[in-house]
């Protein structure tokens, strides 16, 4: 049960319906409608003005939240490329050539389904080794032809099935990361929904990491974390508090470079507008990166991630003394 979806039911939906009805009757601009609209905004603000980390997790998983293909629809053009050349085309990871704001790029994204049937086909956006190998191949293609790489992250995590283990999921993710470490072109990754652990990072080792305000990016799912800590996945909300998985937290750690504000109540309340602002942000970041020479680009990428982390430093003497 999604806590955001639940909260959208009842008064908010009622109010929304009434507004719709009045609008349909041509009462736009009437004072009655204005009052209702004002009420609606106030209610939205009450309900969604201050979201807890767990509420953001639910926002990130909202069934109506725009998925990669919704973003793609706002691109100038997309030509999908398929397959790992060895074994399978993984529909959970889409990729190909694209044109965005007039710029030629290589596009990669985890693709959740927008309904049950598509979710099954897309494996709920959980990528198999074949998907990561396709991604790696396209990253290398991008590097070969000097095309910037734009990725959209939206997955609860890499596929944890038997076949994925048998086909060396670890190697596939590791190779995908290694490919991003090597590419000679700008990489801009955007967390648009759920950024689940290594399966998300595999396409997010980027020069610039953008995050939608209500998306989350986490080392483990709150449910999994709660199960490990307290043997009780129902305490996911508490785990979410601790994991520091919100865009604000991650910007604070230097893990996220840019946050794109969402409409009150979440991206799905004005999908076209929100998508446009994400694409504008990507466009701006690419513009800032695109003229940097490859060596400089790779060095900056190295330094960026090299810096991330927090630890204590002991004097070498002390450290040495404490250890054999």
């Amino acid at each position, binding site marked *: 049960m999604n806590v955001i979806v639940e909260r959208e039911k009842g008064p908010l939906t009622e109010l929304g319906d009434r507004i719709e009805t009045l609008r349909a009757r041509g009462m736009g601009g009437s004072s009655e409608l204005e009052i209702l609209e004002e009420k609606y905004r106030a209610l939205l603000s009450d309900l969604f003005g201050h979201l807890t980390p767990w509420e953001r997790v639910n926002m990130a998983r909202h069934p109506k939240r725009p998925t990669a293909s919704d973003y793609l629809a706002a691109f100038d053009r997309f030509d999908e490329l398929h397959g790992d050349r060895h074994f399978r085309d993984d529909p959970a990871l889409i990729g190909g050539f694209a044109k965005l704001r007039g710029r030629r790029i290589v596009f990669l994204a985890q693709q959740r389904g927008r309904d049950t049937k598509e979710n099954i086909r897309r494996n709920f956006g959980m990528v198999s080794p074949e998907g990561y190998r396709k991604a790696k191949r396209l990253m290398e293609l991008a590097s070969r032809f000097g095309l910037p790489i734009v990725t959209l992250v939206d997955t609860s995590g*890499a596929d*944890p*099935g*038997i076949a*994925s*283990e*048998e*086909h*060396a*999921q*670890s*190697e596939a*993710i*590791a*190779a995908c*990361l*290694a490919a*991003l*470490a*090597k590419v000679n072109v700008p990489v801009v990754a955007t967390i648009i929904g759920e950024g689940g*652990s*290594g399966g998300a*990072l*595999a396409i997010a*080792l980027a020069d610039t990491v953008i995050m939608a305000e209500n998306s989350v*990016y*986490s*080392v*483990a799912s709150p449910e*999994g*974390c709660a199960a*490990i*800590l307290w043997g009780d996945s129902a305490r996911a909300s508490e785990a979410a508090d*601790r*994991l*520091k*998985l919100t865009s604000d*937290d*991650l910007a604070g*750690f230097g*893990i996220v470079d840019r946050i794109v504000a969402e409409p009150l109540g979440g991206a799905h309340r004005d999908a076209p507008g929100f998508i446009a602002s994400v694409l504008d942000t990507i466009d701006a970041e690419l513009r800032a990166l695109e003229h940097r020479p490859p060596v400089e680009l790779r060095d900056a*990428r*190295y330094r960026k*991630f*090299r810096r*991330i*982390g*927090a*630890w*204590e*430093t*002991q*004097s*070498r003497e*002390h*450290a*040495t003394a*404490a*250890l*054999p």
Partner: protein
Amino acid sequence: MAIPEWLRRLREPGVDAEKDAALWAKCPSCGEMLYRKDLEANLSVCTKCTYHFRMHAYDRINMLVDGDFVEIGTEMLPGDPLGWVDKRPYPAKLESDRKKSNLSEAVVTGFATLDGFPVALGVMDFNFRGGTMGTVVGERIAHLLEEAHRRRLPCIVFTASGGARMEEGMLALMQMAKTTLAVERFMADGNLYMTVLTDPTTGGVSASFAFQSDIIMAESHASIGFAGRRVIEQTLRQKLPDNFQTAEFLLEKGAIDMVVPRHELRETIVRVLDYAVDRKRTMPALKAVPEFAT
């Protein structure tokens, strides 16, 4: 490397601190009661069924290196960037792991020679926070690769890890990116990077520097995978075959180069070094490590 006898005893593998005084250890695989001295003399491999007990990092290093091991990276110690508290605060967990394992973090890094081959060596230890990768593990691995790179030494890393360390949140996950970048820069310059996957190697470590190497060995019977066995069983609601995610299974599935019993590990590594490393080039390099300068 001189390890005091009392410290060595503290670090007996596969045993709780409480039972430490006991003279006997029970093999979790065949149930045999093993005399500790014998077990230790046999590199912590069950003398009856060849079950490989997990090894302490320093014991492993002792088993491998010719003589001296010059440790680096010890000045980096874990912080508490998230102010993490669950049943206990993270710093308290770190403190008890420090005591239990006599390690400052889940990886030990440094320089040594193996049958005369100078190498950079990293050894993870499951006894410290389940070998999870937090900032310091990432830092020490990256630092090791950078120092090896500077000296053009081959680098060998023994992995043992439950994955990324939850208590450091996304800062832990980002160590996958950090180590990947360090590995790639190291390898791009033609240096040999080898990993030995020991029990268990999973999650974020498995999906980064464990599987990015020129040669991937795995120790016999080691459990290796991305998702944990229990996660998969819970998701699929079915029991997995016994050999699933074992080193031997992965060899069949083509994921790793070799499965090596612990007793043959040192000589096998040395043979690979002999194939891939130009001794003339690396020998003078170790002299740049002050402790090896003599």
